[in-house]
């Protein structure tokens, strides 16, 4: 295996791992947020509006972590 293909392999592997592992935490986080939102919704269904908005905002924050991983992945793919 020459240097070029090793470099290529490392790049692809790194990008995939970054995306995959980086999504783990946010995925769990989004699941937890969704669960809490559903629980809150079940506890008082009339507060549907605020719960929905806050849930979406929290999901966006958790998702941002995955987005960082995604940025790293595309940096690896397209820039390095």
């Amino acid at each position, binding site marked *: 295996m020459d240097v070029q293909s090793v470099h290529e392999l490392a790049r692809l592997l790194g990008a995939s791992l970054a995306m995959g592992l980086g999504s783990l935490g946010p995925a769990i986080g989004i699941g937890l947020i969704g669960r809490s939102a559903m629980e809150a919704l079940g506890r008082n269904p009339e507060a549907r509006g605020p719960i929905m908005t806050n849930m979406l*905002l929290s999901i966006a924050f958790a998702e941002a972590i995955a987005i*960082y991983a995604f940025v790293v992945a*595309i940096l690896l793919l397209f820039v390095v």
Partner: protein
Amino acid sequence: MTEKPLLKRFPILRVILFIGLALAIVSFIGGSVGAMLRDSSPLGFLATSPPQPELPAEKPFASLFITNTMIASWISILVLFGLFFAATRKMKLIPGGLQNLVEFFCEVAINFINDVAGKKWGKLFFPVCFTIFLFVLTNAWIDLIPGFGTIKMNGLPLLRNANSDINVPLMLAAVSFCFVEYQGFKAKGSSYLKKFFNFGLLACGFRQLFSGRFKNGIKDTFMGTVAVFAGFIEGISELIRVISFTFRLFGNMMAGTIVVMVMIYLVPWVIPSLFYGLEALLGFVQALIFAGLTLGFLTMAVTSEEEAS
């Protein structure tokens, strides 16, 4: 209350759903995925080029430095300006039509900002926060207009989602950062800088060390070092915010673009439309987060610890 299901109330929905499903299946079989399964090339009218995301903004005019994201952001600026200009050109006490709409959104934003920052600061923060929100939102939603990215000039797209050019999020983050620091400094004066450069305790410790009170001196020197380090961390985190702001918006918009591209490549019909809906929601949420976080940091910067507690 017995409400009939939506499909029963509007029989036309069933037809639309059926047609959509049929188109999706046809494009799935005839498109790239089906081609891969069939070991042949996709059907002619379904063939799309594989996604090739381009991180830097393209320059459609060979000799100019103007990029396609610049043109897109100018368009969104024109749209926003036209909207506000048309709404406020003939202001009436009893609003109607466009004026009513724009006033309603402004009022909602003013109330939101006043709730977070208080009335006194809300008035100062409103223009920057709301402009950031509108700019990000318009950039994101203008991209969703069908045919936006298909206009080509010299083989490159003439228009592109301005948020997916890293310069725009970075610029917005820089504006937000500068505004936060400026407001913090203006509100608290030189004591604002003490948050970052906290040498007071360390100097006191050294003085005690040299004047012979070793026990207190060592303790204060240690605590002073910790305080200096904490100030350093504070400053770093303030800078990290800029990067986090930048990459949150950039990454989200880029991811959205790439997801739509990939979906168009895999299943050319129907399915990408669903992701367009997702993109619309994401654009709104990201705009809200960008403006809301700026507002939160502003509020944190101008309220002192005594006031907050």
